[in-house]
């Protein structure tokens, strides 16, 4: 196995272009996951048993099946029923939906971790439901959620190569097309790995900081 620095330097700009798409997909996917996760969490808390059960089953189903198959489902099945999506949009929705189920658990855990006494105190001081949420519950529930959510953000970032399977031109797909046209696999594959590793290691350092800053103090 020989490593060609010249070739590695040549393909780096192409890979960085792919990295841009990777990052865009991650950020958009995270936004979808954050919002949908809240919807799932609220539906599971619904007082209507049927709604709560259905949401619970849906969350479990999405968590129990592979993201890749869900991406295929969105990419191939939706056009058949008349919904045409560009590949990137399909990927963002798929990743967002998948990670929304994880985010929902974080939200649920965070809200349930607020002590009962806080709810009772809010009622005793005659706060409205809205005031209770914005002034009492959320300020206590949100900070401990931040490290856990950031953890899933990092996990989602690492899953973005799956988008190459539905033709999104992210970093892995760029590497594959370089490899297929030059018949050199060592440099593109290794570089993609190295880029992911560098970003992950930096993110992990950031995560540790978030944990120290916002983590639940026990």
């Amino acid at each position: 196995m020989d490593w060609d620095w010249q070739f590695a330097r040549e393909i780096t700009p192409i890979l960085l272009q792919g990295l841009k798409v990777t990052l865009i997909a991650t950020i958009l996917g995270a936004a979808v996951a954050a919002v949908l996760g809240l919807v799932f969490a609220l539906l599971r808390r619904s007082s209507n048993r049927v709604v709560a059960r259905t949401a619970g089953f849906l969350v479990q189903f999405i968590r129990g099946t592979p993201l890749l198959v869900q991406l295929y489902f969105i990419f191939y099945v939706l056009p058949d029923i008349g919904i045409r999506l560009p590949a990137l949009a399909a990927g963002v929705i798929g990743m967002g939906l998948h990670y929304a189920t994880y985010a929902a658990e974080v939200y649920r855990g965070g809200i349930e971790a607020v002590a009962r006494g806080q709810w009772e105190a809010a009622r005793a001081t005659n706060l409205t439901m809205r005031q209770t949420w914005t002034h009492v519950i959320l300020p206590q529930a949100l900070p401990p959620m931040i490290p856990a959510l950031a953890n899933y953000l990092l996990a989602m970032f690492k899953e973005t190569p799956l988008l190459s399977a539905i033709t999104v031109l992210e970093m892995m797909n760029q590497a594959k097309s370089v490899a297929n046209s030059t018949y050199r696999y060592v440099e593109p594959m290794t570089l993609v790995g190295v880029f992911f590793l560098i970003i992950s290691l930096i993110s992990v350092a950031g995560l540790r900081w978030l944990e120290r800053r916002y983590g639940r103090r026990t």
Partner: protein
Amino acid sequence: MGDWTGYLLLILDGAWVTVRLTVMGCALALVVAFIAGLGRIAPWAPVRWLATAYIEIFRGTSIFVQLFWIYFVLPLTGVALTPMQAGVLALGLNVGAYGAEVVRGAILAVPRDQYEATVALNLTGWQRLRHVILPQALPLMLPTFGNNAIELLKATAVVSLISLSDMTFQAQIVRSQTGNTILPFVTILVIYFALSLLIAAIMGRIERRVTRGLDGVR
């Protein structure tokens, strides 16, 4: 549509490959998790560094990148692997890295006085681990191991991209041959979900078995 039974058999063939991958991947992951997890708390610094490097590399990049690296780059060093071997290796090493952290955390969670007692009783290193530490650490590991096993099952879908004929690959074949998208993908989503429920049920049984006699201790 009359040929659907034939296509269903094709998908079931793929399901069998998925099951084999999951079982072998889990077996490898378990072994690797214990080796690396114990390595991280070994008394020798070089062993700790090696284990840490392995864990950070495999947790910092995605299974997809690792699989492609093992399948396309490793053969260039003279290690030629079949898709099945590459798949099991990638799955086992990836999930093993996550498992290693679980092993480490569980062993460190065993109270310190238990170690001191084993030293006082003059047990050898192996005896300490086998008779005192592991029986207490194992129940702590199992719930997370169950989740890891389900993550591994979900990750098996990725091997379809190195043309190993697992369930996802077969569904793609059915899709390209029939043009029908809903049936193959819904079928495999349901089978994946059933498999993940099965894993959860099996892990629940093992957990009950291992924690037998520990009631009241915790």
